C-alpha cells in the first residue's frame, strides 16, 4: 500500500509546523479524514493596523500538490488590497509560474514545489503589513489604502475587534 505523494508531503509539513511553528502562525488539517483541507490562524503583524488580531483562513490543496499550489481564503472579515471581498487571497506565491493573472509577478516569487504552507503563511503575514496595490484583488480597499489611509486602518481595526468578539 503506497500513499499519495500529496498526502505524504502534507503530513510532513504538518509535522514540521507542529514541531517548530513560526511565531504567530498555526496551521493544520481540519480533520483527520482529509489532509487536503487545512485551517490556519495568522496573527496580525505588529506595528500594523492588523496587530492584535488573529485571522482564520482555510487552505485547500490540489491532488497534485506540491506541483500546484493550494488556494487560501480568509474566513473572517478582511479588508485588504490583496484579498478579494469573498476572502480569497491573491499573492504571487499562490500563483504557479506559468500563469500570471496579474502580469507583474516575477517568476521567482511564485509557486514552486519547494514552497510550503509555512512559506505561504509567512508571505501572507508580510502581505498584511505591506499590501501590493499594483493589481489589487479588492479595488476599493486598494484605493482607500492609497488615498485615505486613516479610514482604511480604522476598518481594519474594527475587523480585528470584531474577530476577537469585542
Amino acid at each position, binding site marked *: 500500500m503506497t500513499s499519495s505523494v500529496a498526502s505524504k508531503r502534507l503530513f510532513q509539513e504538518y509535522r514540521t509546523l507542529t514541531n517548530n511553528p513560526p511565531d504567530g502562525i498555526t496551521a493544520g488539517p481540519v480533520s483527520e479524514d482529509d489532509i487536503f483541507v487545512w485551517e490556519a490562524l495568522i496573527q496580525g503583524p*505588529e506595528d500594523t493596523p492588523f496587530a492584535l488580531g488573529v485571522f482564520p483562513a482555510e487552505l485547500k490543496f490540489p491532488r497534485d500538490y506540491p506541483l500546484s499550489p493550494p488556494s487560501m481564503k480568509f474566513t473572517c472579515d478582511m479588508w485588504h488590497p490583496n484579498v478579494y471581498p469573498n476572502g480569497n487571497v491573491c499573492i504571487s506565491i499562490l500563483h504557479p509560474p506559468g500563469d500570471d493573472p496579474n502580469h507583474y509577478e516575477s517568476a521567482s516569487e511564485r509557486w514552486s514545489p519547494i514552497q510550503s504552507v509555512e512559506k505561504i503563511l509567512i508571505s501572507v503575514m508580510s502581505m498584511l503589513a505591506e499590501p501590493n496595490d499594483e493589481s489589487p484583488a479588492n479595488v476599493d480597499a486598494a484605493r482607500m489604502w492609497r488615498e485615505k489611509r486613516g479610514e482604511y486602518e480604522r476598518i481594519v481595526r474594527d475587523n480585528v475587534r*470584531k474577530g476577537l468578539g469585542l
Partner: protein
Amino acid sequence: MEKYDVSDPSDWLETHLTEFAPFDAALRCEVCKDYYNTPMITSCTHTFCSLCIRRTLAADGKCPICRSNDQASKLRRNGAMEELVEMFKVARPVALRLAQKEKISPDRSTARPRSKSKRKAADADLEEEAQRSSQKRKTRGQSRRDAPTESPEVMVIDNEEDGDYQPDDDLVPCPICHKRMKQEAVFSHLDHCEEEQEQDRRRARTRTPNSAKPTLGSSKSQLSSKPPERIAELSYGLLTEKALRKKLSDLGIPSWGSRTLLIKRHTEWVNLWNANADSLNPRSKRDLLNQLDVWERTQGGHALNSAAAPNHADAVMSKEFDGVGWAQSNKSDFDKLIAEARRKAKKLGEGQQESEAMMKEEDEGSSKARTDERSTNVKTTNESSTPVTAAPPPPYLKHSDSLERAKEKIHGSRRLSDASSTSLAPEATRPHTEIRDSVAENGAEGLSAEELFRAEERRASISSFSPTHTKGAERVPMLKVPEHPVRDVDGGKS
C-alpha cells in the same frame, strides 16, 4: 501497509544535538521534504529525488529551486548523496535516542532554554505535552525500524560486502542481493532475486540502507550486469488518440479514459519507471503498477474531482498517524494562539470605553457599511451577559473543536473585559502578569491599553511598515533551522 515516516529535522531541536537539525535538513529533498530517495543531480547542480524531479520536469521543464530549464534525460545520479542518506537513516534513531537521553539527565534545566528558541515560557507546559505525545508517536515508528539494524548486523554486512574485500574467487556479486555467483549466472538470477528481495523488504524494509551501501561499492559489476532501460518520453501532440492508447496497452498499463487522462497516465508511468531504473534497488513492475494504481485513485481517472474529498489513501495515512498526538498538538497550538489573543483582548477591553467614544467621533460621515459594523460592535459589547457574537461565526469554526474552544475563550475574555470596564472588578488586578507580558512584547511599558492602541495607529500611519513579526518568522525558514536556536527572540525585541 506502508510505514509512514514523519521524522523531521526539527526533532533535533529538542535535544542536545541541535546542530543536527540543519544536517538532517540538508539530506532532504526540497520537493517532498523527505530524505532523498534515489537522488539525482540536475544540470544546474541541484539535487532531488529521482521521482520528484522527473515529475516536476514533466510538469514545467524547470528546476524547482532555480527555475533553469532542464530535461529528465540530463539527470545524473548523485551516488555520494545517496550513500550519505542511507547511512544517516541508520544512524539517526540511535543518535536521536542518545541525544534525548542526555536531555533528561542532570542538566535538563540548561537544555530547555536552548531548545525553546521562539517559544514563550507561558506555553512551555502545553508544548511539553505535545512534545511528549510526538515523542511517543516517533518512538513507536522507530522501534520497528531500529530492531533489525542494531549495530552488530551492520558491522557484519559491512565486512562481508565492502568492495575492497571481495574474495578472489572469479565470482561477482548480484547487484541486488550480493550473493556471489558466476558472471553469466547473474542475469537469470536477477529474476528470482527481485522476488526474494521483495519479500525481504516486506519483512524488514530497514535493510535497504545495508544493501545500498555494498552495491555502491561494487559498481563495476553492476555496470556489466544490468543497464537499466528508460522509457522514452513521447511527443503527445504527434500521436492520435488511437496510437496513444496502443502505446499504453503495449506498456502494460491501463488504456482507458480520455486523451488527457491517457497523457497524464503515460507521463506518470514514464516517471515511475525511469525513477525506478535510476534506483540501486529497483522494484518489480508489479510494484510500479501498484504505484500507478495509487496515482489513478488519487490523481488519475479514479480520483474524485473535488479537492476536498477524502480518499482511501488518506484514510490509511490518518490511521497510521497517532490520533492522540494529532489532537493534542493541534490543541496546544490553538491554545497558544488563543492565549495570546485573550491577553490582547483583555488589553483592548481595558481601553474600550475610551476608544469607543473616540471611534464614534471619527465615525461621523464614514461609509454606511462601516457604521453598520460599528453598531453591531457596540451592541455586542453592551450585551455583556450573553455571549453572542456580533457576526455569525465563520464557517471555519464549525469544523474544529479547537476553535470552538477558542471562541469560548475569547467570549470568556470578553466577559472579563466587560466586567473590568463597567466596574473595577477583581479581574482588573488578576491578570497582572499577562498584561505585563503583552506590554513588554510591544516594548511600551507603562502605557495604558488605549495609549498603546493609539501608538499602533501612529506607527501604522508611517508609510514604511516594520513587520517585526514577519522578520522574526523569516529568520526560521522551513529547511533552514536557526544557526543559534539559543537566541531569545522575545528578549531581543525590547
